[in-house]
């Protein structure tokens, strides 16, 4: 189990600007 700690999978992240674009469609429905 201890071994697993050394093999974390890198999660690729979009940039701040890309994130904003992704979000526009998702949250517009909330009042």
């Amino acid at each position, binding site marked *: 189990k201890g071994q*697993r*700690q050394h093999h*974390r*999978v*890198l*999660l*690729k*992240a*979009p*940039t*701040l600007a890309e*994130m*904003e674009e*992704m*979000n526009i469609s*998702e*949250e517009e429905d*909330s009042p």
Partner: protein
Amino acid sequence: RPVNIPRKEKDFQGMLEYKKEDEPKLVKNLILELKPRGVAVNLIPGLPAYILFMCVRHADYLNDDQKVRSLLTSTINGIKKVLKKRGDDFETASFWLSNTCRFLHCLKQYSGEEAFMKHNTPRQNEHCLTNFDLAEYRQVLSDLAIQIYQQLVRVLENLLQPMIVPAMLEHETIQGVSGVKPPGLRKRTSSVADEGTYTLDSIIRQLNTFHSIQCQHGMDPELIKQVVKQLFYIVGAVTLNNLLLRKDMCSWSKGMQIRYNVSQLEEWLRDKNLMNSGAKETLEPLIQAAQLLQVKKKTDEDAEAICSMCTALTTAQIVKVLNLYTPVNEFEERVSIGFIRTIQIRLRDRKDSPQLLMDAKHIFPVTFPFNPSSVALETIQIPSSLGLGFLTRV
């Protein structure tokens, strides 16, 4: 319904379980609708950041990369949204800068990377992320923190700006120093606050407000220092720029008043234990301009003394102050053209910029030094006022 059996804190693992469909509710209640001045006043500093991180930990524990990604993206966008909507409010900017930094520190402290684990307790080390490396998201959060910082500086600047000239230059606290003013300079009023609306006390009070709210939000001490340094720079630059444009500010007595005001600001730094913030150093050009107003300006020795004293002023600034210098009583005289020539010749080899005015809009680059927390995640409780009853402590 299952009976809610109270558990001991040691039974918790410092995670918060939530359903994927509750993620928008989490962002709404914890970020979008949380008012720093309302419920948040009584929270432990950085609580929103800890809660979000504990949710990330649970998604990591489930090995659900989509859930982790989605939460991080919604969190970052939520914070951006709040700042877009209420970012001109000082408390909102300060609150979310503090929490964004705390979230970033959590992602480092529990990343499992040894460099960030040095100050962890053994229990904290057990709480490190197990499945995912979120280094790229840390970079995005750091970029976000820079944006919020810049926004915060602009907000603080807007609040401080109207006070600077009236308080630092126009208002006279030292009674009797100015003596008789030269004819024609007496009634000049260039700011709305000339009636004494703003004094140095107004600036000090404003600095106190900024400082106490930042402390209340748990802003990193190193970050508070950077904010204060930036504010002092703005005060110094705006004051000096106005001095360089106003003949009525270039007198021996104004020099005295400015030095007194600067000493009060320095006193404030000392009182708040911020002397090592670099804030005082940003006032150096103003301090030297005030000294320049007060020293003798006649002989070659005087010229030499001025040149070795005024290292933080450009030649253009030194010459301008000398040209504007206006005696306020019969014991003083204008600076002779010959003296100014001497100064210019002596400073010829200086390779400084021809710039007269300081860039009052300049923002120093900000850094967010790692600041691990001693808070034990498993002890964190969520007040019901946050409306996060759908989160389960794990």
